């Protein structure tokens, strides 16, 4: 009965999500206004000629209005110029909800509910393609120039040498800080250059003491912090053979100690959900944030703080192999097997995999750093950004991104991250680090096996 309820509830939720999600339809220029627009649910008729699909509607699931949705709207505008009559139906769905919707569709064997294009976290990409091969189109021979993308990034959406995703944004981690607050405490951005975490915490204590503002906020548990700290030292939660590397992982223990110190010193404010986190720096509760560079879209939503932000690379762990560079997040576009494949592929080929113009628009506005090589050479990257006090932040981030150590994440990335997150909660509650990590390792081994 519970199983049945679970399915009914999930289906209801799915329907509700699709129905309630803020639907943004990007209309083509007013010339087309007279033609009756096809309803989003209808799949447009296949065009007779195979090469250039005219008009048509695509549905996309993605999240974050300041970033992914904004980028998709711009892409739709650019594509509609070369393909009049084209419409894009963007459904705003949180990543967690997209994952649940994909799982439900695959488990129920009902692929009709899927949109044409889905945005997927890179860390979940291989997991989903391996678990649900029937859900996604193999794009290897679709004509999309995958060799023009950064190899490491394109590799995140590859399974068995085949491409299943069109790479989108880069998740190089950055420290973004309020220069006006630092000034009040007698510091500049340069003081945060190439620091270790211990030095960073000392600076943070000083800023906190003088201004009353913590430097950072993060979602409680610190799973994300620990994940990017580990990657900055080139360490993974998995060994090369896929077995968990949690217990007796010296870098992990160091990262957890740093995190505990950050919380106990008050330099990091723990919040309980993502909205609180975004609010922490937009409302000025804290003086900055550390996250993937995609956070710049949200940072720039605080107009009143324009000119008062600076961007620096992140602190490093004080261990052999520790660097000031890491990666957090990043996502790629997948085409589902329920898609109007021809149109969806053509759309992606002429926008995210073929339009420098697109990246030149979304880069300064949203911080959407391209992983498509032709766009990375654009002069826009070198332009000083007024919001960041004239710093050419994107040139700096591109420089950071070249130094990020590569690590293996694997299919069980989320389980590993959660297991460590649970251990950190126990440790914050007074448990012994080594014992908590051993339990986390056992849990992960249990979940994999």
């Amino acid at each position: 009965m519970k199983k049945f309820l679970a399915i009914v509830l999930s289906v209801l939720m799915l329907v509700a999500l699709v129905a309630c999600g803020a639907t943004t339809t990007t209309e083509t220029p007013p010339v087309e206004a007279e033609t009756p627009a096809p309803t989003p649910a209808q799949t447009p008729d296949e065009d007779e000629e195979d090469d250039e699909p005219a008009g048509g509607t695509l549905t996309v699931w993605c999240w974050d209005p300041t970033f992914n949705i904004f980028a998709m709207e711009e892409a739709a505008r650019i594509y509609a110029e070369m393909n009049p009559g084209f419409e894009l139906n963007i459904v705003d769905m949180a990543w967690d909800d997209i994952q649940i919707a994909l799982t439900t569709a695959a488990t129920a064997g009902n692929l009709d509910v899927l949109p044409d294009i889905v945005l997927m976290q890179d860390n979940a990409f291989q997991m989903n393609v391996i678990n649900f091969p029937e859900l996604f189109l193999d794009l290897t021979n679709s004509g999309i120039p995958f060799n023009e993308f950064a190899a490491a990034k394109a590799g995140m959406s590859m399974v068995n040498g085949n491409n299943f995703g069109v790479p989108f944004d880069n998740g190089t981690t950055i420290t973004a800080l309020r220069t006006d607050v630092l000034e009040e405490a007698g510091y500049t951005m340069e003081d945060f250059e190439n620091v270790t975490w211990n030095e960073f915490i000392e600076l943070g204590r000083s800023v906190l003491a003088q201004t009353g503002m913590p430097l950072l906020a993060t979602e409680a548990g610190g799973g994300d912090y620990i994940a990017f700290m580990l990657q900055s030292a080139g360490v993974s939660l998995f060994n090369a053979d896929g077995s968990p590397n949690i217990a007796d992982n010296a870098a992990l223990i160091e990262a957890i100690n740093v995190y505990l110190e950050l919380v106990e010193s008050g330099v990091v404010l723990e919040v309980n959900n993502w909205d609180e986190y975004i609010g922490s720096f937009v409302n000025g509760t804290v003086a900055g944030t550390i996250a993937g560079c995609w956070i710049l879209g949200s940072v720039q939503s605080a107009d009143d703080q324009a000119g008062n932000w600076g961007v620096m690379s992140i602190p490093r762990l004080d261990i052999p192999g520790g660097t000031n560079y890491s990666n957090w997040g990043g996502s790629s576009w997948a085409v589902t097997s329920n898609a109007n494949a021809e149109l969806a592929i053509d759309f992606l080929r002429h926008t995210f995999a073929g339009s420098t113009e697109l990246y030149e628009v979304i880069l300064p506005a949203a911080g959407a750093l391209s992983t498509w090589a032709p766009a990375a050479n654009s002069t826009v990257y070198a332009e000083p950004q007024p919001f960041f006090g004239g710093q050419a932040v994107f040139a700096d981030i591109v420089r950071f991104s070249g130094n990020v150590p590569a690590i293996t994440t694997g299919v069980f990335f989320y389980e590993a991250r959660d297991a460590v997150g649970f251990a950190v909660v126990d440790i914050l509650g007074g448990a012994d680090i080594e014992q908590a990590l051993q339990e986390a390792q056992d849990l992960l081994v249990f979940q994999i096996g």
Partner: protein
Amino acid sequence: MQMSERAITRKPKLSLAQKRGLTGWAFLAVAAGLIIWMNFYPMVRGFYIALQSGVGANMQFAGDLNFRRLFADPQFRQTISTTFLYLVVQVPIMLLTALALASMLNNRNLKGRGIFRTAIFLPCTVGLVAYALVFRQMFAFDGLINTILINVGILETGHNWLGTAWSARLVIILGLLWRWTGFNMIFYLAGLQNIDRSIYEAARIDGANPFQQFWKITIPLLRPVILLTAIMSTNGTLQLLDESLNLTMGGPGITSRTMAHQIFATAFQGNPNIGYASAMAFVIFVMVAVLALLQMKVGDKR
């Protein structure tokens, strides 16, 4: 009468009783069919899935693997103890409060009874997700509760309600009490109104004080209703999902996560394992059945 007599003469094979029986069964058949289709079939099917292992459409028969796995699963054990904590703390408090409120509001001389009844029942009309989100906002670090407690002088700095295991569980229990007490009170009120007032009158003449009236008359006569609410609350608490999912998101860690939330997470998040999730669901089903049976044995004296 005449009609049915004529009918009998035409079809002498069916007696009147048989005919009535058949009519009854015909009416029952629809409901029974629906219950079999929508309740029993999914139960059997769920058990069948619980015997399988795999991802998505690639499921293979795995025998009792999932059930053996359950006994070794530290997360499932933790969610069971959390859920039973909610059950043991919340259900008695809620039922006693509901009973007390109901007997107070059953007083005919009380002014504004209607307003009080409505006010106490009103939380039940609020959507589960909506109230969970409001509670989450209220108990946020810079939320209403902390602001009040700091301004009144009870706390010096805010308490991270949802970031600490014991207080996150407390917030869930508070939420449940707020949301469901009025619901149970309505059942008790209905039960109380079925008790003949003359019984109380007789008791008063015999010299029984209000306390004795409550224990000797109200409680015994309400027993079937109390049994009903106890079973419903137990059942509801063991299947608690919305509060865990939306209010605390199971956190910190999984310290406030319920069994149903664990099933949801296993079935739909990360690498999904619907077979294992079905096995967990089956275990909850057995638990609910056993507890309901126990309560009926204890509570039903007919």
